[in-house]
């Protein structure tokens, strides 16, 4: 292996005074360093307070508490009436209500409306229903891996794990489920990259972040308008038809509600699973013993995937806002205070996980919160993502056993999504 496993950084060596979770560049530091910082925060300042980043066009907000202990995160997540999502779940800043709903949809709503809207699609994502899509997921994965192989053979053997393996799989699966035509998929990928870019300058070259973000949202909404009109005229057996035809409280969803739900499903379904695949493969290449062990034993597919999601924590945090004064595990808070639930930190809490800095594809039990903790917002796509990941890793072991990571990962400068932009690799060497 060309990339050696980096030993866990010594938490004692982290200077907490230099740690600013609001600084986009801090998030491109190596994960070992970030986890060492989380270790210090978790044990010394479990509700550490940070100022919000400056975003041009938005008034500076009051700041937030970074929740890093598993027990605190769970206590907040399972009390949605006290810690709501409706003030914004995916941004540190309070954003205007219309933008919040447009880009957040479900994820930035509270019950009872949240539950009613979520139930329109929940059926499609259950284990029983997904059993039927297993064959099509397999077909997508086999095709993507065959193309990666063909690309390597046509050139010098080099591929990009992100562009050639990790990105196309979830994109094709979710677009199939939504009924997005082939011709529109490249723009769906580009726009969902911008929406979750966290303002990373490489992804939004030509514009200021806010303009790029709004343009991407408008293009997605325009696509939805077109598909919605088509499905109303001619219903099909896809999610888009369910969105346009189901009634909630005796009314159909508004155009804007449909568009934002559509965007959420595409964006949430793409970026997360992609980063679990790319960084799962990175972790496996850094831990060749775990690669060999998992590859040899399909019985590890279940625990292996859970460990990848724990290890990578593709969604770093979600936000909640206190609706009242109170106290949580001894910490007093007042109405309006913001809490960022750092899943990435809770997933390495030594109170819950034995030897948390060890990547162990057989870890069991593994009660990670990579898909969210207890509460009504628990990931809608968890069963789908698990399935995609199980099929993908097994297929890589069988079809690309010669995959070799050759270069350093290019990290997305985002606190919210733990993402890779590129991961150089090679096929056909003698691994």
């Amino acid at each position, binding site marked *: 292996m060309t990339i050696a496993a980096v030993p866990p950084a010594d938490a004692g060596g982290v200077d907490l005074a230099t740690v600013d979770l609001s600084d986009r560049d801090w998030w491109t530091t190596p994960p070992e360093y970030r986890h060492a910082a989380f270790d210090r925060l978790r044990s010394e300042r479990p509700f550490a307070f940070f100022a919000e980043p400056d975003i041009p066009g938005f008034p500076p907000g009051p700041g937030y508490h970074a929740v890093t202990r598993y027990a605190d995160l769970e206590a907040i997540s*399972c009390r949605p009436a006290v810690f709501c999502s409706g003030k914004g779940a995916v941004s540190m800043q309070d954003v205007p209500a219309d933008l919040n709903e447009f880009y957040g949809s479900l994820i930035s709503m509270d*019950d*009872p409306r*949240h*539950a009613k809207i*979520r*139930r*329109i*699609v*929940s*059926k499609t*994502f*259950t*284990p*029983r229903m997904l059993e039927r899509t297993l064959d099509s997921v397999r077909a997508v994965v086999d095709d993507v891996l065959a193309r990666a192989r063909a690309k390597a053979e046509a050139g010098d053997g080099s591929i990009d794990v992100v562009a050639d393996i990790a990105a196309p799989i979830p994109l094709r699966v979710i677009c199939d489920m939504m009924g997005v035509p082939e011709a529109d998929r490249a723009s769906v990928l580009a726009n969902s990259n911008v929406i979750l870019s966290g303002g990373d300058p490489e992804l939004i070259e030509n514009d200021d972040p806010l303009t790029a973000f709004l343009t991407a949202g408008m293009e997605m909404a325009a696509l939805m308008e077109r598909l919605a009109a088509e499905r109303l005229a001619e219903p099909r057996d896809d999610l888009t038809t369910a969105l346009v035809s189901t009634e909630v409280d005796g009314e159909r969803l508004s155009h804007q509600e449909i568009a934002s739900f559509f965007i959420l499903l595409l964006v949430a379904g793409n970026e997360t699973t992609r980063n679990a695949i790319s960084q799962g493969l990175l972790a496996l290449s850094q831990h060749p013993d775990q690669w060999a062990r998992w590859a040899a034993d399909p019985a590890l597919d279940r625990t292996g995937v859970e460990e990848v999601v724990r290890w990578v924590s593709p969604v770093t945090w979600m936000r909640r806002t206190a609706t009242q004064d109170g106290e949580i595990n001894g910490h007093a808070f007042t109405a309006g205070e913001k809490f960022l639930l750092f899943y990435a930190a809770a997933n390495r809490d030594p109170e819950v996980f034995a030897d948390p800095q060890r990547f162990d594809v057989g870890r069991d039990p593994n009660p990670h919160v990579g898909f*969210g903790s*207890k*509460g*009504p917002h*628990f990931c*809608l796509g*968890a*069963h789908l993502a698990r399935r995609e990941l199980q099929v993908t890793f097994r297929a890589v072991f069988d079809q690309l056993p010669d995959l070799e990571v050759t270069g350093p990962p290019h990290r997305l400068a985002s606190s919210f999504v733990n993402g890779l932009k590129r991961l150089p690799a090679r096929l056909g060497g003698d691994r």
Partner: protein
Amino acid sequence: MRVVADREVCVGAGSCELLAPDAFKVDDDGAVRVLQEQPDDAAAVRDAVSQCPTGAITLLERD
């Protein structure tokens, strides 16, 4: 022993269906349906109850 569900609180996350498929199903309206009020596999149902993200299902031990 009896299984009860609160269909208003349920968001159809489907954990129960995964852990105790004989006892639960996410129905066409997106909320849980109890298939066995007196479950065959009480251990699986207890597991499902403890994993439910919204606390929508309960196992009444004496009923």
